[in-house]
């Protein structure tokens, strides 16, 4: 039984379906609605480059034949009974459970964030409604202070707020009003990004584009009416338009399921086997886990292969494989039809070079090729990643060839 039919849930269901005949295993996916959103596409919505409708497809259509889809809300999981309690008293029993229910936004946890000014001059692009509202606000923005703020980690796609800054800079230049805008990135981290080499490179890009960086800022309150972010340490950042990435948590039902989640409703999970720490027959994937990997579709993709094999090992009473290495890769849009690519895992920070080998895409460098690859990825997502078809050259473990440990170069392609 798979709870959640997003990126991780869908690709694991499809992998498992290919591993087992219908007589060997019944596969059920539960989700609260039948709309599958291509989340990376939300980044472009505020700039009027795409609407939200084109990012959604029918969830059940993404599953291979022979997967049962149940559209309902999960109330809680009883690990001891091996049973999922659904809305209206319905119950489903499982032999193996995969928690794939992602992360949710919890803007109400930050004082004032959803109060005065919310969806008027305070927006998030992390939801379809927010991104669409922000598109309207950006098109009528004529100048002033534009502030992009991450309240606290962890968040989905930790590079997305930086990409938003780069794209906003480009958008404002194209509109001819960049000189009238003070653009500021306000982060709880001590640099532009967490990993040293990438942080230095991305910090340099912010500087080059005239984007001010405010670090170690823990937002305690958003005063929408007064146009101020107020830090717990008393610092303030004023704004005319604020783009806030709210706090994230795991799915609410995780919190209602004794022993399943941590204090933020993420599922404590073994970093290499993807078996949960709650019970041997419970696994977790993607944003739903507490792993120190990015909450990103690429991670769910790389985890899926290992997780599906480990479900099979578990059902065959074989030892699990510690096969997941934390592999993550992300394209970072930098505007002007260019993008960077970063590739890393638990032990190796993002390094310059090429991916997946010495003749591949440039790493940690702006290039048009990376931008085209990012745009092309949407098609790959629906047609290769979700159906769990092999993508040539893209394995689940991080490739080492093509990478250099030398200092980061400033070249362009």
């Amino acid at each position, binding site marked *: 039984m798979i709870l959640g039919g997003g990126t991780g849930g869908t690709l694991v269901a499809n992998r498992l379906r290919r591993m087992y005949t219908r007589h060997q295993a019944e596969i059920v996916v539960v989700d609260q609605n039948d709309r599958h959103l291509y989340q990376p596409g939300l980044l472009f919505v505020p700039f009027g480059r795409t609407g939200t409708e084109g990012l959604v497809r029918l969830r059940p259509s993404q599953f291979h034949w022979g997967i049962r889809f149940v559209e309902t809300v999960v109330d809680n999981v009883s690990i001891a009974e091996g049973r999922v309690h659904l809305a209206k008293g319905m119950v489903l029993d499982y032999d193996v459970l995969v928690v794939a229910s992602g992360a949710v936004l919890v803007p109400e946890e930050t004082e004032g964030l959803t109060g005065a000014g919310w969806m008027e001059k305070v927006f998030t692009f992390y939801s379809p409604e927010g991104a669409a509202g922000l598109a309207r606000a950006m098109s009528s923005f004529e100048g002033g202070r534009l502030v992009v703020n991450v309240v606290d*980690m962890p968040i989905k796609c930790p590079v997305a707020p930086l990409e938003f800054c780069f794209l906003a800079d480009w958008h404002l230049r194209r509109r001819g009003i960049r000189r009238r805008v003070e653009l500021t990135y306000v982060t709880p981290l001590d640099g532009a990004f*967490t990993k040293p080499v990438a942080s230095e490179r991305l910090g340099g890009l912010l500087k080059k584009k005239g984007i001010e960086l405010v670090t*170690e800022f*823990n937002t*305690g309150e958003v005063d929408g009416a007064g146009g101020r972010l107020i830090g*717990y*340490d008393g610092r303030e950042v004023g704004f005319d338009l604020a783009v806030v990435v709210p706090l994230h948590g795991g799915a609410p039902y995780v919190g209602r399921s004794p022993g399943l989640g941590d204090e*933020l409703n993420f599922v404590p999970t073994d970093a290499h086997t993807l078996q949960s720490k709650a019970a041997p027959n419970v696994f977790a994937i993607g944003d739903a886990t*507490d792993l120190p990997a990015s909450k990103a579709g690429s991670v769910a993709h790389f985890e899926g292969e290992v997780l599906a094999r480990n479900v099979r090992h578990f059902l065959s009473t074989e030892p699990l494989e510690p096969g997941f290495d934390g592999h993550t890769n992300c394209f970072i849009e930098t505007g002007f039809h260019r993008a960077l690519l970063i590739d890393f895992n638990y032990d190796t920070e993002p390094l310059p070079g090429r991916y997946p080998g010495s003749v591949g895409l440039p790493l940690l460098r702006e290039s048009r090729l990376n931008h085209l690859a990012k745009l092309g990825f949407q098609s790959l997502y629906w047609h290769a990643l979700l159906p769990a078809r092999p993508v040539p050259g893209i394995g689940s473990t991080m490739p080492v060839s093509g990478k250099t440990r030398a200092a980061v170069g400033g070249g362009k392609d």
Partner: protein
Amino acid sequence: MTTTTIANTDVELNDEGFFVDPSQWSEDMVPELARLEGIEEVTDQHWQVIRFMRAEYQAKGTGPTVRVLGKTSGVSIKELYQLFPKGPAKEAAKIAGIPKPRGCI
């Protein structure tokens, strides 16, 4: 990395001032470590947070973030900032002799 003497014991600190080896830490170092952070008087509430950080690190291998501290330590985030004005997670981690809390990405 530097070697510093705290409460008459040599300990190794990294460039940012966090303990390299948390097992070198002991409770009698707390007043001196706190003074290095500008905290003159270690109150019961400071101790509550420091002991909580230590226990979380031992259980999970990483210190809690400010948000998790606010949810689980019994001290609200606003009070945590009054106790540790430079940022509770980092400052309390230094005084509790544990590594910098991992800002999970």
